[in-house]
């Protein structure tokens, strides 16, 4: 019985994903498409060729970073909704480093860029961490607010400070040539760079940190029971700040894949919501590094898979991606989803059994009782 239960626990997220995808795809009926057809197009578009596979990996890379970011914060009992802002600031910092020290030669330049990204993201993560630890204000609202603030700041810096002089697009000037990181040639034209290896390394490091070090233990202890952690001599505030710094730094690494590995500059609107998708990725991956990598691949495939729908179908656009993500998150997030339907079945059973007894004594209804307890002066 015990193994059956754990087996169910293992497959439950997979069932949830399938259910979520199914519900999401059913919506395409409304557009007069066959969901099965749409699904086939998506699979082909995500895995059909080396290029397609490469694009899937390209989209998965930032999701690994943001997924890890949410996961680390989550283990410390914090909800990092601010991945979007942290990755923007991180990417902008990466670009800024690349523009300001454009002459830096190859092996040092990308390292500097990476450090810039980590630092930028970490700073943006430290703010809500500090606010939670020292002022007690909740990180969810603060990170949402910081997302908007970072959007404003990035737009200002991009348009006024680091503006690309040769273009009307909202983007910065390009970074030094030494900053561009090697591409993986296997995936044809797809911009898959060594950033994906960095992402995998980050996953390993996060695993090591959380489960092999004292610091990681303290972080998880704080997330599980803050009072007990404090009584055991753990500095809860420090751990909270540190967790958000790490989370921010991880999100800040998105710039490596987007700026150093692809665009060569920071563009406004570069992220199609990687920060928010990171929540789904972490959730689906149960905040385990391996799970995060796996679910990042799934969400990357979703993102790539829907991108061809615009011209492959009549009416279905790539917006389906958002819908599918939403339905998958909903189904995965629902704690009581499976037991809910289980209980419904059980209850029906019980009601039937009770009806067989056929005896129902009248109980006062709410409105009767209401009128009897009404006091009139």
């Amino acid at each position, binding site marked *: 019985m015990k193994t059956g239960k754990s087996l169910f626990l293992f497959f439950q997220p997979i069932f949830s994903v399938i259910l979520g995808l199914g519900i999401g795809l059913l919506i395409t009926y409304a557009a007069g498409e066959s969901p099965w057809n749409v699904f086939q197009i998506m699979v082909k578009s995500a895995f059909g060729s080396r290029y397609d596979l490469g694009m899937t990996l390209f989209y998965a890379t930032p999701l690994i970073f943001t997924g890890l970011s949410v996961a680390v914060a989550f283990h410390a009992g914090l909800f990092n909704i601010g991945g979007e802002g942290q990755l923007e600031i991180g990417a902008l910092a990466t670009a800024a480093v690349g523009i300001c020290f454009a002459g830096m030669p190859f092996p040092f330049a990308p390292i500097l860029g990476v450090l810039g990204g980590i630092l930028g993201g970490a700073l943006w993560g430290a703010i809500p961490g500090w606010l939670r630890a020292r002022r007690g204000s909740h990180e969810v609202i603060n990170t949402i607010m910081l997302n908007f603030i970072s959007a404003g700041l990035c737009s200002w810096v991009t348009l006024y400070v680091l503006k690309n002089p040769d273009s009307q697009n909202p983007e910065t000037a390009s970074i030094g040539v030494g900053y561009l990181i090697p591409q993986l040639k296997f995936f044809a034209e797809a911009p898959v760079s060594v950033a994906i290896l960095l992402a995998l390394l980050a996953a390993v490091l996060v695993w090591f940190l959380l489960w*092999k*070090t*004292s*610091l990681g*233990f*303290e972080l*998880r*202890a704080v997330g*599980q*029971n803050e*009072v*007990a*952690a*404090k*009584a*055991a*001599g*753990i*500095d809860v505030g420090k751990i909270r700040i540190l967790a958000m710094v790490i989370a921010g730094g991880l999100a800040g690494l998105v710039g490596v894949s987007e700026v150093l590995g692809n665009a060569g500059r920071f563009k406004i609107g570069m992220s199609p919501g990687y920060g928010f998708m990171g929540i789904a990725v972490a959730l689906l991956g149960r905040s385990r590094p391996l799970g995060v990598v796996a679910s990042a691949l799934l969400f990357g495939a979703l993102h790539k898979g829907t991108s061809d729908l615009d011209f492959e179908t009549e009416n279905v656009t790539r917006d389906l991606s958002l819908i599918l993500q939403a339905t998958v998150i909903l189904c995965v997030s629902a704690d009581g989803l499976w037991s809910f339907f289980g209980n419904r079945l059980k209850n029906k059973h019980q009601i039937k059994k*009770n009806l067989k*007894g056929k*005896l*129902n*004594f009248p*109980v*006062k209804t*709410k*409105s009767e*009782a*209401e009128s009897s*307890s*009404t*006091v*009139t*002066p």
Partner: protein
Amino acid sequence: MNPIVEFRGICKSFHGVKANADLHLQVKKGTIHAIVGENGAGKSTAMKILYGTYQPDSGEIYLDGKLWGGRMKPWSSPSDAIHCGIGMVHQHFMLGAPQTALENILLGVEPSPSWSSWLPFFLRPIDYQAARIKLNQISAQYGMKVDLDAKIENTSVGVQQRIEILKLLYRDANILILDEPTAVLTQQETEELFTNLRKLCQQGKTILIITHKLKEVMNLASRVTVFRRGRVVAERDIGRTSVEELATLMVGRKVNLQGAIPSQPKLGELALEVKNLSLDGHCSLRNLDLHVHGGEILGIAGVEGNGQTELLQALLHPKDQSLKGSLRLLGQDVSHFTADRIRSLCVGVIPEDRHREGLLLKKSVQENFLLGLQRRPPFYNKGLISTKKLTHEVRRIIDEYDIRPKSADVAVSTLSGGNQQKLIIAREFEFPPRFLIAAQPTRGVDVGAIESIHRRLLDARQKGCGILLISSELDEILALSDRILVMYEGKIVAEFQRGQVTEQVLGLRMGGASA
């Protein structure tokens, strides 16, 4: 005459654990009926079934001879119970803190003026004036006054309880269930409550009171039912029983209220010295003086909520508190230390509320053992955790402390209270502490484990560890302490040596009575 409440063969289990088994119980109208039993004996569960919070697996309940719930009638909800005149004051008060007393009393039965009857009932304006008039009548009838406009968060526990009782009376409840009503009350508040309850009883209300304080039972009730392990083991008239008999029935064997008398303490150096300590809090500490030597157990007796929590906070997290006075621990001034630095002095802590302050409930036994030791060799090595040594050590302590089930990987939430407490003690004793703070060390722990925990504490004392024992169990205080201080409203009001005081005197002093 029919009994007003009658349980017939009620059974209820949670996740396969029997909370109530074949329960039979009869309560006479217009009496105060006490239900006594140890923690976890199933008293609260039975009453929550009567109130409709839980639905039993089988059995029937009759109210005044009529079927209230059972095989032939679906079980009722709390709202049905309220309409049938059953009311319950839960152990944890059901009050909204920022709301006023009046709003809390009215909740669910809001009166509305007659002109508004065309509106759906949930949109009719609340007629606060009518409610006040009715409440004033009730207050006058039973002599219970409260400030109806006071916000709950600004009232004392005693007043909150009065509000809870008024809530029931406002709903015209005839059967009042009170779950451990005196656990958080001072002696005076308890006296006042009892006076009120007697008055209610004279006016024809039936009162069911759950408690484990036997003297209160003798003082208040007319009949008593004893629960043990989910069953009714006896029912007695108060006139025909005694505290000793009830205690024996509750525990299931002859209770040795004395315990083995430990040898004379071998006093070591001064371990803890608190001078003139003041601290603002829920119950503020005022000019506290106390000291504990190595090899000595100092017992602090007192009803909960008389400053014990504040004292613990001051000792464990001095830096976070704005405390006045001096605090010396093991020869160092610690008044500005963090918990981390306090711990590094070899101080062990058995917390008041182990779920909240001592354990990571969802994590394994192994990880819980590590909590607080994660930076100490041999489990710590250059930032990393030595899993091998940890696993080995956990296996050893599971055997030594007889923690069941014998597995390092189960979540501690699945362990019984006693086994959880043993785990905490194993952890705190891993490196022999030089000073130990033990707060309510045997709360919610089964009898077998109590003896083993007491033995561990006495062993530590023998080895020269100074122990500050905070407990509201008089037996425990009397059995273990070399000296006893009584705490009342944030002050030390009495001091006794071992053997110089009886339970009666101690109880009186805890309730604030002067010598």
